[in-house]
C-alpha cells in the first residue's frame, strides 16, 4: 500500500502546485457567490487583501446579474408576453453582466495576477462551479 499511497500523493501534489480552486459559497442560497477565504497555497504568492477584493467584486457582479431588479422583471414579462421569442433577438441582462465579468477578470489578470505568475479563469468556463487560479509551474517549489 505504501507505493500506491505515494503515487496518489504525487498526483495530488502535482495538481496542487498547478491549480487552486475557489469553491462556491452557498450560505445565501443558490445565488452564484464564491468563497472569499484566502487559500493557503497562495499565501506566499500574493496579498490577501487583493485576492479578497477580487472575489468580493466578482460576487457583487454575479449578484447584479441575478438580481430581480426592474430591468430583469420587465425583460421577463416582455418575454412571457411574446411567448419567449424575444430572447432570439435580444441579449439577456445576465449575458450582459457576464461580459462585464469577463472584462473584469481580464483586467485583473493583466494588472495583478499575471505579474505574479498566476492566472485567473472565468468561472463560466467551469460551469460557475469554481474559480481556478493557475500557478505557473516554473514558480512552484
Amino acid at each position, binding site marked *: 500500500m505504501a507505493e500506491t499511497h505515494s503515487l496518489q500523493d504525487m498526483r*495530488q501534489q502535482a495538481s496542487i502546485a498547478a491549480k487552486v480552486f475557489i469553491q462556491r459559497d452557498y450560505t445565501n442560497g*443558490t445565488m452564484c457567490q464564491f468563497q472569499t477565504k484566502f487559500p493557503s497555497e497562495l499565501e506566499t504568492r500574493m496579498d490577501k487583501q487583493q485576492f479578497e477584493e477580487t472575489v468580493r467584486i466578482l460576487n457583487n457582479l454575479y449578484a447584479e446579474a441575478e438580481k430581480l431588479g426592474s430591468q430583469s422583471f420587465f425583460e421577463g414579462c416582455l418575454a412571457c408576453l411574446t411567448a419567449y421569442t424575444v430572447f432570439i433577438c435580444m441579449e439577456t441582462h445576465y449575458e450582459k453582466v457576464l461580459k462585464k465579468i469577463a472584462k473584469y477578470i481580464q483586467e485583473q489578470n493583466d494588472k495583478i495576477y499575471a505579474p505574479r505568475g498566476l492566472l485567473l479563469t472565468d468561472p463560466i468556463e467551469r460551469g460557475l462551479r469554481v474559480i*481556478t487560479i493557475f500557478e505557473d*509551474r516554473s514558480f512552484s517549489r
Partner: protein
Amino acid sequence: MKNCEYQQIDPRALSVAPLSAQSHAEEKARRPRRKWEVFPGKNRFFCDGRLILARQSGVLPLTLGLIVVTCGLFFAFDCPFLVEHLTVFIPVIGGVLVVFVVTSLLRTSFTDPGILPRATADEAADIERQIDTSGSSTYRPPPRTKEILINQQVVKLKYCFTCKMFRPPRTSHCSLCDNCVECFDHHCPWVGNCVGKRNYRFFYSFIISLSFLTSFIFGCVITHITLRSQAGKSIVQAIQESPASVVELVICFFSIWSILGLSGFHTYLVASNLTTNEDIKGSWSSKRGAEDSGNPYSHNNIIINCCVTLCGPMPPSLIDRRGFVPPDEAVPAAPASEMELPPFTAKSDANMCHQSTKDVLERMLNSSDFHGLCPAGTPKTTPLVQEGPASAPAEPPAGCSRPHERGAAARLCRPLSKHSRRDSLHSINPAFRLASPSPSLSRSALILGDAPNMGFVPLR
C-alpha cells in the same frame, strides 16, 4: 475490464495498425469538434448544438401530435360554425393560444434545463483530496455529504459520483439524462426533457396555456353542439353532422383533468418556491407547521416567489454546446511511443483493454532494454516516475519472467489496479487529458492498471 483476455498478437500486424490509427487520429485532430459532440450526458443535439433534447424523447411526438390534431380539427370543423353564429374572435383567441402552447412546448423541450457540466479531473482530484484528508482510508468511502447553512437552515449537499462534484443546493442528478440539473424539478416524458432552472418558466407557461387551450376548445365544442341541437335537431343528429367535435371532446375531456391538476400543483410550487423534487421528498415539509415553511429559498411572499421563478433573470447555459473543444483535448496523435487510447469511443473498458494490451506487447517487442527495468528489491514506483510516458512502466507486469519480481510487481499492480480503474474511468472523459497536469504519471498508472488483469493470467 471483465472481457480482458490475452490475445495472440501478430507482430507484423502491429507495425501496420498503429500507423493507420495514428493517421486516422491526426485527421480527427485536424477537424475542430464542438463541445456538444463530446458531451458525456445522454442528450441529443440538433442544429449543430443549438437545440438539446434528452436521448429518451419520451412521448414528445405524441404530445405534439395530440395538440396539432385537436387544434386542426377545431379550426376545420368547429370554427366555421362558431364564427357564423357567434364571433370571429373565437379562432383568433384559439390561434393565439395554440401559438403560445406550441412555442412554450418547443422551448421547454429544446432548452438546456440547467445542466451542470461535469467536474474536470483536477477539480475532482482537489475535492477528493479535501475529503480524504478528513479521515477515510478506504478507496470507496460511503456516500459523501457536506452540510452547509443556508438562511439558518441545515442543507445537505450530496456528492455526485458521476459528475464528480458536490451538487449545489437544489441540484439533482437525472438518471435518464445522466446529468446534474440545477433546480431540478422533474424529468417530463411529455416534453422529452428535464425541467430545471432554465426551462421551468417555459414549462409553466406551457401547462398554463395548455389548460386555457383545452378548456377553451372544450367550451367551444360544447357550445357548438348545443347550438346545433337547439335548431330543432337532437344531440345525436348534431353529433352526426359534426363528428370531429366528438373526437375533440374526448381528447379534451381526458386531458383537462390532468392538465388542470398539474397547473394547480405547479402554481402552488411557484408560489412557495419549491420544486417537484423537493415537494415529493418532503424536504421542508416537517417544518411547515412552524412558520410559512422551512424552505430556505422561499422569500415568504407569494408575489415575490412568483416573480423570482417566472420573471427572474434568465441564467445562461453552462454547458457551452457550440464552443470548440480545445485542440490538445482531442486525440493524442503526436508521439508514437505514447499510448493511443481510442479517443471518444473509449467508453467500453473492453475496448481500452484490448488497445492497451496491443500497445504493451508492441512496446515489449520493440523495446531493447526492458530487462533493465526489473530491478530486484527496489520500489516499483521509481520506474514510473523516471520513465514517464515511455515504454518502461508497462514492462514489469508483462515482461518480467523472474518469479520473485513478478510477485513483487503483482503486489504493486493489484492494489494499483483499483486506483487506476478510477483513473481509467477518468481518462474516458476527454477533458481529463487537458486538465491533468501530469499526463505521464496518470497514463502510466493507467497502463499499469490495465495490464495486470491480463498480463498475469498467461504468464503463470
